[in-house]
């Protein structure tokens, strides 16, 4: 399972005089779960938004499974599922309709959509709320349905911003296990998180971002992420 699925090269973005992301490069290989950690305002979410095409980079390139997000956005978007930190939903749709809509927008055939929705309904114990309007969901349930939507199509990458805030402990475990399963199936996961214990448990690699730059990257196995985080981000 070799070769990078997510490639970021020298990506930069300013907001006025503020350098939100400055010359960031990273790679996530197939089978890897890469956790990006760092303090608030470090530029993590800006980086992810550029990677998924919600923000245009000032310079640099980003590609998913070989598709440049700026030059070939359609090709790139076919290859990843995305979950933001606070996924607002279409309040007027039910969770089930939202999943069906995602399948349709990804061009899946009707039988595949039905089958996939059926499979995904069993991931979290939420099948009874899938028939309700998403406007009535708690933050955690919205997040679960949005996560399921990101798994609807056969993507090669998952890009996830703050995956576990708002989830109950058993859902966190289910979530993490599904990420692991996705990576073991040959996918690449890039997740941004402040929950170091989650990154420690599920990530294979970690990058610490501070003041718009990645200040260190390493394999997680055996290391103490909290100490790494404090070492790399404390103001000298």
């Amino acid at each position: 399972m070799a070769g990078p699925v997510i490639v970021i090269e020298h990506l930069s973005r300013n907001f006025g005089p503020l350098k939100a992301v400055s010359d960031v490069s990273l790679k996530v290989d197939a089978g890897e779960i890469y956790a990006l950690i760092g303090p608030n305002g470090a530029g993590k979410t800006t980086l992810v938004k550029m990677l998924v095409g919600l923000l245009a980079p000032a310079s640099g390139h980003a590609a998913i499974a070989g598709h440049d997000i700026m030059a070939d956005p359609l090709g790139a978007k076919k290859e990843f599922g995305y979950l933001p930190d606070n996924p607002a939903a279409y309040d007027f749709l039910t969770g089930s309709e939202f999943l069906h809509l995602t399948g349709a927008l990804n061009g899946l055939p009707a039988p595949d959509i039905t089958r996939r929705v059926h499979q995904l309904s069993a991931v979290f114990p939420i099948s009874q709320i899938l028939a309700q309007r998403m406007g009535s969901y708690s933050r955690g349930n919205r997040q679960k349905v949005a996560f399921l939507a990101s798994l609807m199509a056969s993507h090669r990458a998952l890009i996830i911003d703050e995956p576990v805030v708002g989830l109950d402990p058993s859902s966190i475990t289910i979530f993490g296990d599904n990420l692991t399963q996705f990576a073991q199936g040959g996918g690449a996961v890039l997740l941004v998180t402040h929950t170091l214990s989650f990154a420690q448990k599920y990530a294979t690699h970690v990058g610490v971002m501070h003041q718009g730059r990645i200040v260190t990257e390493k394999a997680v196995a055996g290391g103490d992420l909290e100490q790494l985080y404090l070492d790399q981000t404390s103001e000298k």
Partner: protein
Amino acid sequence: MKTAAILRATDFREIKSWFAVQTGSKLAVLAGFILVIAGLEVGLFSGMGYYFRTLAAAQDFGYHTADYIIRATFLVVMWLGIGSSAAATANLFFTKNKNLAYLLTLPVDISDLVRWQTQKTITFNTFLLAVLLAPLLLAFRLTFVGYFDLVFILRAVLGLFGLALVATALGGSIGFLLVAETGRSTLTRSLLHVGVFLGIMVLIFRLVFPPALASLTRATPSAFYPLYQSLPLARSWVPTNWLAGLITVGTPVDWLLSAALVIFLLKFYLWLECRLFLTTYWQVNSRPQEQLGFIFETSRLDFARQTPLRALMTKDLSAVIRSPGEIGYGVFLASLVVFFFGLFSRVSLPAGTPLSWIILLQVFAFLGLVFFTNTFLLRLAFPDMAKEGETAWYLFTQPLAPEKLWLSKVLLAQLLILPFLFVAATVWLFLSFTGRYYLLLAGCSLIMIIIITLLQAFLGLINPNFSESHSAEKISTSYMGLITLVITTTLALGVAAGLDQYLSGNAFGILTITGSVIIGLVLVGILGAVSRSGLRRYEF
């Protein structure tokens, strides 16, 4: 009282902080809106003044006819006010309101909350009525009295305040009772409510235009008064007549009855609200959520069998038909259209009616149709893309070509406008003043509606106000909304001017109409291309 004062201060602070960001452009938008409204007011004032002066030539008979128009207007406006207040009250419970949810967790007396909400609604409604009715009332006063002074203005404000208060109190009470008693907003119940509203609208219409009214125009001076006195709206027991009387005649009886009506209804409404507010809120929020505001059942949306384009359109269409607020707005506007053209369909043209009067009616009906179309689109089609602000993370990360997204928004606008196209094609058949110009008037209406729909869709895609995605009203009153209003109104006025010229016998009018249509089509081409390429530059 202290709590109500704090809540009012918070409202002012919210307005102040809204203006604190991008102050220049917001003030420009405000100034633009004031200019547009002022232009419309001047137009209405001139039109009504012209009409009242025609009536004034018939002395006492003319005055009574004008007085009848004021009474009829008060009655109709009150009914529409009741309808919109009832819908707003129901909407307050059926839609998520984070501010209200927060306030209900604080140690705030519910009667303070109720009073604060009522004060806001009545102030806003009085202002709205003042804007709506000022041209009519001023034209009436200037034509039949010759001047207006501070006393008249005070009386007018009091009359309008009373009207707003009665409509709010009655409509609010009905809204409360509907939510509390009938509970959920299912398709059958929603249709029943709409049916009752429109049914009463028809009754009011018959009250305003009884069969005896037609014979009034042919009545001899001796027969006029008995006939006039027999009209339902000439009776002293009609409550809206008391309020209209504050402005037109102002007898002590009118004052007394108006005051009694207003005080009674306000007291009743506040009592009802204090009594039912919390229980209704709990009741609505403890029901299974899928039963709230679902106009169409969930099983009807089969995204799985749809192409991406159709799925996008279905999603956007369900955002409209599953929202009680949007449906309420649509029904409210539909009732205005029914009333407006119902009114015009009752116009009979006796022999010798001046040509200028017939042309005025034709042009006014055309502008009315365009106005309603524009208002409808500005609220339901123009904000379609801006409403994606909160869900942009989803929509713009799906593997969709921007062109497909663009097309879905444009096609949805065309789909939403279909009822108006039907009205434009048929309504002229029922208007006595259409004469032999059906093809011209229907053709101009249809072409303008299609052009305006395309322009609204395109302009809604250029620089959408994503930051206000939760509020269609705020999106449509942003600076792009104002630009849209100005462009579409200017084009419609161009066609109206051409119609006026041509119907007056000036063949040059056809050139004016064609010119306006060509300008519209060129704008459609340019803005279509700009909106399509602009879709790639959105950032979130």
